């Protein structure tokens, strides 16, 4: 195996403490051999909360697109109808009356077949996501199938539907790596303002505690945005107090439905700098970094990673809604092997990324292809928000070379 990094945050795994280098080398193996080792399967667009930054679609507006194949069951959360005919309790896909013909979500039977096809193609790490994955009535059938196929599974959820019975049942799956739970604040006021559902903060934490009680690995996922930036250090402290791992991300992209209202939730430049000089400083690099080799610029998109949308579109990764084909028209293997979209991505070289190739901040950049694609419509484009983050990270790294004392941790606001 070639000991270089296949760079991509989308192949991060919950629940693996040891063997990180081994996993990295296996990811590189998959990258180089075009084995879709990591797949995200969006089992539904239905969701019981209505996050302001949701990348699926604007959950406050009528949506003439996909239609859920089911209604989320067991949701006790009630969402007030949005002005202008929003999505109501399920916050999903409910096409407004008179809307164009909907594209139905994959049925449970189709999802089971997708799991089989992914396994056949070499998928080992399967991320089940949504919408809200726990709202899917066939979830445990999907988990059963993944277990039979010896796939390692992680769930990405808001946690609010994790009742005691469900947490206990999840704990019986020996192939469950863990559960990634999204958290948008350190207080109910802030978190619930982001989800637009009163009580979601309390339910999310109750779900987290239920998972922990039955021994399921939990990782928190913080998305730092304008409304919650001032609680970043408190969110980190909450994770630390419970010994929970977390990831922290500034990434808010335009939506897959083409709307961009989500972008108003992005942190401002001032907020980002304040955070990066404050509580996040220990997480950032210090000292100059050499630019990575040109061949390392290609991430794991369409190489070791892929994603399947709730309606069967096959994407290069979960962040890039660039459909390479649809599973109702072609098999996964055929799309994976022959799609012009995937061939295009796999053939890209550093010089094809016109703005990134000469950029002096390349070594400090996340190279977020999802942000670039949704911002510009061009996979090789650049999202100014990401560029600004790279510039800031570079500036701070040079300001504070390695070996300098850490600034005191403290709130960034």
């Amino acid at each position, binding site marked *: 195996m070639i000991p270089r990094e296949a760079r991509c945050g989308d192949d991060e795994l919950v629940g693996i403490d040891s063997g990180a280098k081994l996993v990295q080398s296996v990811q590189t193996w998959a990258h180089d051999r075009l084995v879709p080792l990591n797949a995200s399967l969006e089992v539904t667009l239905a969701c019981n909360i209505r996050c302001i930054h949701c990348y699926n679609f604007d959950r406050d507006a009528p949506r003439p697109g996909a239609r859920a194949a089911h209604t989320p069951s067991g949701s006790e959360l009630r969402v007030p109808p949005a002005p202008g005919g929003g999505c109501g309790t399920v916050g999903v896909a409910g096409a407004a009356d008179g809307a164009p013909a909907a594209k139905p979500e994959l049925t449970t039977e189709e999802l089971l077949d997708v799991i089989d096809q992914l396994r056949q193609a070499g998928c080992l790490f399967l991320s089940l996501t949504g919408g809200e994955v726990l709202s899917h009535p066939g979830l445990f059938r999907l988990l059963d199938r993944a277990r039979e196929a010896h796939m*390692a599974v992680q769930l990405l959820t808001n946690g609010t539907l994790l009742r005691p019975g469900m947490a206990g049942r999840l704990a019986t799956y020996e192939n469950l790596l863990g559960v990634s739970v999204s958290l948008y604040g350190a207080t109910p006021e802030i978190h619930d303002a982001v989800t637009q559902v009163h009580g979601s903060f309390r339910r999310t934490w109750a779900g987290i505690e239920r998972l922990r009680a039955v021994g399921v690995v939990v990782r928190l996922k913080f998305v730092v945005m304008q409304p919650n930036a001032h609680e970043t250090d408190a969110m980190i402290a909450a994770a630390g107090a419970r010994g929970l791992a977390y990831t922290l991300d500034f990434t808010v992209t335009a939506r897959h439905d083409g709307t961009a209202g989500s972008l108003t939730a992005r942190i401002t430049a001032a907020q980002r700098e304040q955070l990066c000089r404050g509580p996040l400083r220990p997480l950032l690099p210090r000292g100059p970094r050499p630019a990575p080799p040109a061949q390392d610029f290609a991430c794991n998109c369409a190489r070791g990673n892929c994603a399947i949308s709730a309606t069967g579109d096959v994407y290069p990764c979960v962040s890039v809604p660039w459909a390479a084909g649809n599973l109702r028209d072609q098999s996964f293997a055929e799309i994976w092997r022959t799609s012009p979209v995937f061939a295009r991505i796999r053939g890209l070289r550093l010089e094809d990324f016109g703005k990134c190739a000469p950029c002096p901040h390349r070594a400090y950049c996340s190279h977020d292809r999802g942000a670039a694609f949704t911002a510009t419509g061009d996979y090789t484009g650049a999202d100014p928000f990401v560029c600004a983050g790279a510039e800031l990270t570079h500036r701070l790294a040079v300001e504070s070379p390695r070996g300098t004392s850490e600034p005191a941790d403290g709130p960034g606001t």
Partner: protein
Amino acid sequence: MKTREPATNAWRRASSLPFQKLDEEILVVDPRTRSVHLLNPSATRIWELLQTPASEARLLVSLCAEFDAPVEAIRADLVRSLGELEEKGLIGRDEVPRGGEGPADAAPERRGPA
């Protein structure tokens, strides 16, 4: 009346662990211990043979049929690999009635190269 024969140990994979073959090796993921293991080619072949539980004797027969090496060398490698896999918690032993696996439980015979 049929009498039950003495028990023997059948090796089996730890249940439902995720794994994937990578060229000549297998990566096994163990969420219980939050760890991953890359099996060498010998352990990989044993892992594959343990798709169904099997005794050491049966595994030896299978391996002898595949590899052109002295039986004792294959046996030593098998015992070492089984020990390593068991130590990592990737396989375990079940007691099964002798003869429950069929004729492959008989002593292995040397065969030609696979």
